[in-house]
């Protein structure tokens, strides 16, 4: 009996809490041509809703009402600057935060060759992975090369030997759409003196836990010592079996990539 009363009581509290609930604002739209830039870039924020304002940060912190109110395009010059924006308004619950990181140019890459992408997602020509275009969260964007094979190799050539400490690859993650981050990335550099490829670095990515939504995710493979080379190769292992929580578990996942950079 007591249990029942308690249950009714708890239910009452819950219901009254939700009765005071209001609608949540949708996230503002961050507008940019590409997340990749040379020197500087401008980012616009769109959110045409009366009685609201968009607050943003570029220092990585979660935006609050005390942060800057968006009024005009934000100019970014620093590499790896993350713009975070959130809409607030009286009578509404604040929106979710939208965050996009902008990436400055790296060492000049003379040419790129990669495993041929699936014909449905061919990208936009032979320069797709070094054209400074990308970071678009929609898989239909022609900036993406899409793969559902096991391994993808990308060869980068430099006109002159370059000191390389970091290799960056930008991926799409849209798990409900079968697009997963790769399982593993192995980077090698060509050692002219030994006339062979040497290990640069490796990262492994675990996608066992579900990530909802569609996001651009960049991964950096770093070598503290660095190497001087004119060829870099990245071998990407596409996820072969989608995890148990996925509605298409066991099926081969897709890997979408739009850019590769070296620093």
């Amino acid at each position, binding site marked *: 009996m007591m249990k029942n009363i308690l249950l009714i009581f708890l239910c009452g509290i819950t219901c009254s809490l939700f009765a005071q609930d209001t609608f949540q604002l949708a996230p503002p739209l961050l507008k940019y041509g590409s997340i990749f830039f040379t020197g500087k870039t401008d980012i616009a924020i769109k959110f*045409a*809703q009366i009685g609201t304002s968009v607050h943003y940060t570029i220092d990585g912190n979660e935006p609050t009402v005390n942060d800057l109110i968006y009024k005009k395009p934000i100019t970014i010059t620093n590499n790896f600057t993350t713009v975070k924006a959130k809409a607030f308004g009286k009578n509404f619950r604040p929106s979710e935060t939208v965050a996009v990181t902008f990436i400055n140019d790296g060492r000049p890459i003379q040419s790129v060759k990669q495993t041929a992408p699936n014909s449905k997602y061919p990208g936009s020509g032979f320069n797709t992975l070094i054209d400074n275009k990308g970071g678009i969260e929609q898989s239909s964007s022609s900036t993406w090369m899409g793969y559902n094979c096991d391994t993808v190799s990308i060869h980068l050539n430099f006109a002159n030997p370059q000191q390389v400490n970091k290799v960056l690859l930008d991926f799409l993650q849209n798990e409900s759409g079968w697009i997963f981050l790769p399982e593993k990335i192995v980077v090698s550099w060509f050692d002219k003196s030994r006339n062979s490829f040497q290990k640069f670095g490796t990262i492994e990515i675990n996608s066992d836990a579900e990530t909802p939504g569609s996001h651009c995710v960049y991964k950096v493979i770093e070598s503290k010592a660095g190497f001087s080379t004119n060829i870099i190769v990245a071998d990407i292992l596409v996820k072969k079996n989608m995890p148990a929580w996925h509605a298409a578990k066991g099926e081969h996942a897709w890997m979408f990539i739009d850019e590769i950079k070296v620093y």
Partner: protein
Amino acid sequence: MDRRKFIQQSAIVTAGISYMPSFLSAKEKGNIVLGHNNKRYRIDTKWGALDFSRYPVKDCHEMVQDSQGRIILLTNETKNNVIIYDKKGKLLTTWGAEYPGAHGLTLFNENGEEVLFICDNNRHQVIKTNLQGRVLLTLDYPKETGEYSKAEEYIPTETTIAPNGDIYVADGYGKDFIIQYDSKGKYIRHWGGRGTEQKHLKNAHGVCYDNRDNNNPLLIVTSREQNAFKRYTLDGKYIDTIALPGAWVCRPVIHGEFLYAAVLQSQSRLWQQSGFVTILDKNNKVVSNLAGSIPTYANNTLDEMYQTVKAFQYPHDVCIDDEENLYVAQWNSGHVYPYKLTPVV
């Protein structure tokens, strides 16, 4: 399995999972005003709520009002494909168990008797019934067009009926043709389909007879994946395109001088419950977005539109009643019953 096809199917599976949040949001208070200019509304998310154990819904696809003032809802739940409410949201009656793919619902006054046209995605048919559900006519896949080799290629989503009784069917999930029949169901012609020209369609999800200009009635067809409506003469000649950047518009609904449409989702946030409702004036200019961005034109070009308030998930159709109230039926939104929006004067 094909990635795209899979996404469509898994979206339907997740409908069940997202039941709770929409149940909770049904408690929302009506103090928020949605929309712009002289088309602003207060929302009642509880209007259509029924006992789910007795009168369940899956996707609430479309709604119409009959001459008795009743609001008729079509759902692909075969326990009660048709749910009839009064304007206060009281359940009056239900019928229909044979429409697993119930999608399009159009009402037509045929010499004094009101009839319904149901498009069934799964049956690949258009079915004409009376208001009690008695079947009067069934249109199978249009072999006569020469465009189809089997029924499965034809997935009709919408109909509209011209005053002379001609039936126009939009094959919005099939091959995107508009097929015109006479009132008896005899094939007359077809047009549209996919392609690269302006006259072609991509996801011809809706069609409506637009008689706002009495001297020049025409057809408005949805090209949803192109975020546009396209206008055609009654015999299928392409006239022009009404671009609606950013908006996955469903069928156009004409009421008075205005055109109303549910927007399934925003192009900027695909498959993330980013829908809203859009309203166009007699010149086909957007004057209001309910839960969407303020409509603005620069040099006669409409700026991208998008959801700003999460009042809806995936709106699929609107119905405007004789008192200018607006009802919204939603697809894949956690089995949510229709909402009612009342004009703010």
